[in-house]
C-alpha cells in the first residue's frame, strides 16, 4: 500500500514547486500508469517513493509519504531499495558493470549477500526475464530492449514489493517497447508486484492499467481507473479519440475491446504516387552499403522532391541511419547520388552541407556554445556567411525559441534543445533537411511542435526526409512513405496504403477500421458508420 498526502516538493534551483499538495493512493499488486507532459513532475513523483527525492536531488519537501508503512524521506534510498526498485529512462547510462549477470548482482553485492544465495537469486530473476542465455554477454552487445530487461532484473534481484519504471520505453523501438511492457505485465501477475510506470504513450499499457494518474502541467493531479480519467485528458491515444468521437461508453481501451462496427461504402480515392522523378531535388539510385561484411543497404532507390515530407519507417537495424549517413557521404556506399543534378561524389562535404542539413539521432551532440544565438552564429561562420542579428532572431522565432536566444542550450528542455539543434543546422537555409529519429523521447506537445516546424518547411518548399519508428506521427505528416526492411525498400509511395496494408506499420485507426483506407482519427467519418 502506497499513500501520499499533501506532498509538495521544490527543487533547489527552481522557484516554483514541481509537485504541489499531491494526494495519491496505490493498492498493492496493481499496475499504475503515470502520465502527463514533460516537466509535469512524473519522474519527481516516482522518485519520492524510494527517497531519491529529496535525498539525491536536494530541495524542500513537505507532506507525508508511506510505502508499505515506511517513510522514504526518513529512511533514504539505500534502505528503501529493499522495498522499492527503480528502472530509469536511458538504458545505456544506468549500468555499473559491463556484463549482464554482474550488473544483476550489483544490488546484492552491496548487501553483502553470501555468494551462493546471490547466484541463486541471479538465476531466478534471469529466468523471470528470459535473460538466461544472455547472462555472460557484454552489455554493449545487447539491444536496448534487452538492456531494459537487464535493468529490471537488476532492480528485482533484491525481491522488492514495488517496481517503478520511469519512461522505460522512451529510447526503444516499438517492437522492443511492446515486448518490454509484456514482461512488466507478466511480472506483475507472477510476483504480485505493485508496478508504477511513467509513460508518454498510453496505447500499449491502457488495457493492463488498473489505475491512471495524470499530472497536468500545473493544476490538479487526476487519479482513477483509466476510463474515468481519459475523458478529462486532451492528449489521448487514437483509439480513445475515435471512441470519444463515436461517443462510446464505456470507452474501448484496446483494439479487441472495440465494438464491431460497420462502415458504409467507402470509396478508396487513389492518390497520385508522388511527383514525377524529373522534379526531384535529391535522387539516389541503386545505393549499396556494407558494414563489417554485412549488407546494410541493398540496391536502394529514393528521391526527394521540394515541398514534400518523406517519411522513412522501418524497424531497428533496417538501415535508416545508414541511409541518411550514406546520403551525406559520411559512410562509404556505392551507387548514384545526385543533388540537384550534380553527382554528389564530386562534391565536398562543405558543398553538400550548405544545401543539405542533417539532424543526427542525438541532437545534443551538436550543441556546445554558450547561448542559443551563439550556436546559430557558429554555423553561419562555419559556412562563411555574414552574421545578421535580425535574420537569426527571425529564424529562432520559427522554432518557438524567440525568447530563448540568450539561454544556455544545455539548460533547455529536451524538446527545446532539439529545436535549437534544428535551428542551428538550418540557419544557412538548406534545400534539403534530413532528420534521424527526431521523435524519440518526445512527449505529445513536443511532437506537435516538431510537426509544426516540418509543416512550415514544407510550405517553404524544402525537401524533407524524416526517419521514425512512431507510426502515428509518421501518418500525420507524410506526403510520401518509404518502408524499409533489412536494407531493402518494401514500399515507396502514398501514405494510405503504407499505413493500412502492412501489418507492422498499421496505425491504430487503421486497425480499428480495416478495409476503409482510414488511418488517422481525422479520417474517421462518423456519418458513414451505421451500427454504433
Amino acid at each position, binding site marked *: 500500500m502506497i499513500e501520499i498526502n499533501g506532498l509538495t516538493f521544490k527543487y533547489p534551483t527552481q522557484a516554483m514547486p514541481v509537485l504541489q499538495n499531491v494526494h495519491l493512493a496505490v493498492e498493492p499488486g496493481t499496475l499504475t500508469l503515470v502520465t502527463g507532459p514533460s516537466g509535469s513532475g512524473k519522474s519527481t513523483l516516482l522518485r519520492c517513493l524510494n527517497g531519491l527525492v529529496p535525498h539525491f536531488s536536494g530541495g524542500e519537501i513537505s507532506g507525508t509519504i508511506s510505502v508499505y508503512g515506511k517513510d522514504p524521506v526518513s529512511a533514504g534510498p539505500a534502505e528503501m531499495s529493499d522495498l522499492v526498485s527503480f528502472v530509469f529512462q536511458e538504458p545505456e547510462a544506468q549500468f555499473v*558493470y*559491463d*556484463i549482464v549477470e554482474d550488473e544483476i548482482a550489483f544490488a546484492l553485492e552491496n548487501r553483502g549477500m553470501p555468494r551462493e544465495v546471490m547466484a541463486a537469486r541471479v538465476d531466478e530473476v534471469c529466468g523471470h526475464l528470459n535473460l538466461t542465455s544472455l547472462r555472460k554477454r557484454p552489455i554493449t552487445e545487447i539491444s536496448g530492449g534487452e538492456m531494459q530487461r537487464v535493468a529490471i532484473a537488476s532492480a528485482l534481484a533484491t525481491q522488492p514489493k514495488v517496481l517503478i519504471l520511469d519512461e522505460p520505453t522512451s529510447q526503444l523501438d516499438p517492437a522492443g517497447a511492446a515486448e518490454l511492457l509484456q514482461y512488466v505485465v507478466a511480472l506483475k501477475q507472477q510476483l504480485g508486484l505493485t508496478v508504477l510506470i511513467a509513460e508518454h504513450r498510453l496505447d500499449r499499457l491502457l488495457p493492463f492499467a488498473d489505475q491512471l494518474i495524470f499530472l497536468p502541467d500545473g493544476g490538479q493531479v487526476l487519479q482513477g481507473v483509466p476510463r474515468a480519467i481519459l475523458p478529462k485528458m486532451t492528449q489521448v491515444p487514437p483509439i480513445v479519440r475515435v471512441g470519444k468521437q463515436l461517443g462510446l461508453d464505456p470507452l474501448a481501451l484496446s483494439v479487441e475491446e472495440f465494438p464491431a462496427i460497420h462502415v458504409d461504402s467507402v470509396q478508396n480515392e487513389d492518390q497520385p504516387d508522388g511527383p514525377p522523378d524529373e522534379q526531384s531535388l535529391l535522387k539516389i539510385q541503386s545505393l549499396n552499403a556494407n558494414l563489417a561484411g554485412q549488407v546494410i543497404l541493398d540496391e536502394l532507390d529514393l528521391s526527394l522532391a521540394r515541398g514534400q515530407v518523406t517519411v522513412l519507417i522501418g524497424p531497428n537495424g533496417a538501415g535508416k541511419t545508414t541511409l541518411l549517413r550514406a546520403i551525406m557521404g559520411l559512410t562509404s556506399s556505392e551507387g548514384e547520388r545526385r543533388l540537384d543534378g550534380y553527382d554528389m561524389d564530386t562534391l565536398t562535404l562543405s558543398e553538400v552541407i550548405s544545401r543539405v542539413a542533417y539532424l543526427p539521432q542525438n541532437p545534443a551532440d551538436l550543441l556546445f556554445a554558450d547561448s542559443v544565438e551563439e550556436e546559430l552564429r557558429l554555423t553561419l561562420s562555419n559556412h562563411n556567411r555574414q552574421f545578421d542579428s535580425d535574420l537569426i532572431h527571425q529564424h529562432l522565432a520559427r522554432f518557438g525559441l524567440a525568447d530563448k536566444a540568450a539561454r544556455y542550450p544545455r539548460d533547455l528542455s529536451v524538446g527545446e534543445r532539439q529545436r535549437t539543434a534544428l535551428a542551428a543546422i538550418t540557419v544557412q537555409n538548406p534545400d534539403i533537411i534530413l532528420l534521424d529519429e527526431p521523435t524519440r523521447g518526445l512527449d505529445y506537445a513536443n511532437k506537435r511542435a516538431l510537426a509544426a516546424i516540418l509543416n512550415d518547411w514544407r510550405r517553404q518548399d524544402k525537401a524533407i526526409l524524416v526517419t521514425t519508428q512512431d507510426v502515428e506521427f509518421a501518418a500525420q505528416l507524410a506526403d510520401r512513405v518509404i518502408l524499409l526492411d533489412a536494407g531493402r525498400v518494401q514500399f515507396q509511395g502514398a501514405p494510405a496504403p503504407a499505413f493500412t496494408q502492412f501489418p507492422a506499420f498499421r496505425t491504430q485507426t487503421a486497425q480499428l477500421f480495416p478495409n476503409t483506407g482510414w488511418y488517422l482519427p481525422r479520417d474517421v467519418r462518423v456519418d458513414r458508420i451505421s451500427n454504433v
Partner: protein
Amino acid sequence: MTVSATWVAWLVASLILLLSTRNPIYLFVIIILLFILGARQARRKGRHGWVHQNLRFTGTMLILSALINTLFTHTGQTELFVLPDEWLLIGGPFTLESLLYGAVNGLVISALYLLFDVFNLSLSIKQITRLIPHAFRPLTVMTTVSLTFFPAIQERTRHIREAQMIRGNPMEKISDWLPILAPLLVGSLEDALLLSESMTARGFHARNDQPDNRLVLVGLILVVFAAFSGWLLRLFAYPTWISILLYSLGAVVLVVVLATAGKAQHVTSLHQDDWRRQDELAFTLLMAAGLGLIVTLVTKLDAGFSYTPFPRLDLPEVTLIGLCLSLIPGIPLLFKHHD
C-alpha cells in the same frame, strides 16, 4: 592456469628472482621463457605481432641502456676509446665493462617489462580489478564504471565528431576540440547523474562513516613508515634483519588493516575464481619454487646470481641451483590456460 592467485604468485616469485640476479646467462633464460610464455598468451588473446613488437623493444632497451651507461660511466679497465675530458659529463674513457654493465641493465629492464606485460596478457581486466581489496569498494566501483563507460564514450565521441563535421566545423585547429569536448562532457555528466541515481536506488553508498576509519588510516601510515624506513636502513647498510623485520611488520599491519576495512564495507562478490586441479598444482609448485628462491637468497647459497663486470671482466658463473631457479617464470608453460 587461469586463477588470479596463481598468476599473482607467479608474478611475485618471478619479480623476486629478477631483482636478485644480474647474471646475464640467467637473465637470458628468463627473457626467453617470458617470450615463449608471452607468445602463447598473446596468441590466446589474438594479439598478433606481440613477439615482434617486444623483440624490437628488448633490442632497443639493450642498445640504449648499454650506450647511456658507456656515455656516463667511465670506470673499467678495458678502454675502447677516449673522449676529451673537457666534454661535460660524457668526457673520459669509454670502457667495455661499462658497456656490458649497461647491457645487463637493459636485460633487467626488458625482463621486468616483459614480466608485467605477460601478467597483463594473462589476466583479464576484470580479474585485475577484482584484486583491489574490498576496503576500496567505492574506488573499485569507480573503476568498474570507467571500464563500462569507456566504449560508450568512444562511440559518443565519434558521433559528436561527425555531428560537428556536418555542421561545417572543419576540425583543423586545436580550438576545434571544444565542439567535441563540450558536448562529450555535458552528455557524460548527465549520464553520471543518472548512473549515480541508479546506483543509489540499488543500495550502493560510497560514503562510509565507519568508526574504524581513523584506525585504518593510522595503520596505513604505520605501513608506509615501515616500508620507507626498512628501505632507508638497508640503503645505509644497517643489518638486513632490521629491514626484514620492518617489512614483515608492515605487511602484517597492512593485511590486518585492509581486512578490517574490507569487512566494514559489507560487500560480497558474485564471482569467484574457478579453481581446477591444474590451478592448485600450479599454485603449489609456484609457492614451492618461491620458497626455494627465498631460502637460497637468505642463506646466501651460491647460485651465481650476482655478477658484475667491474673491476675486471669475467665470465658469469652458472650453478645448477641458479639455473633451476631461473626457470620459475616458465612454470605456467607446464599448464594449460582455460577460459
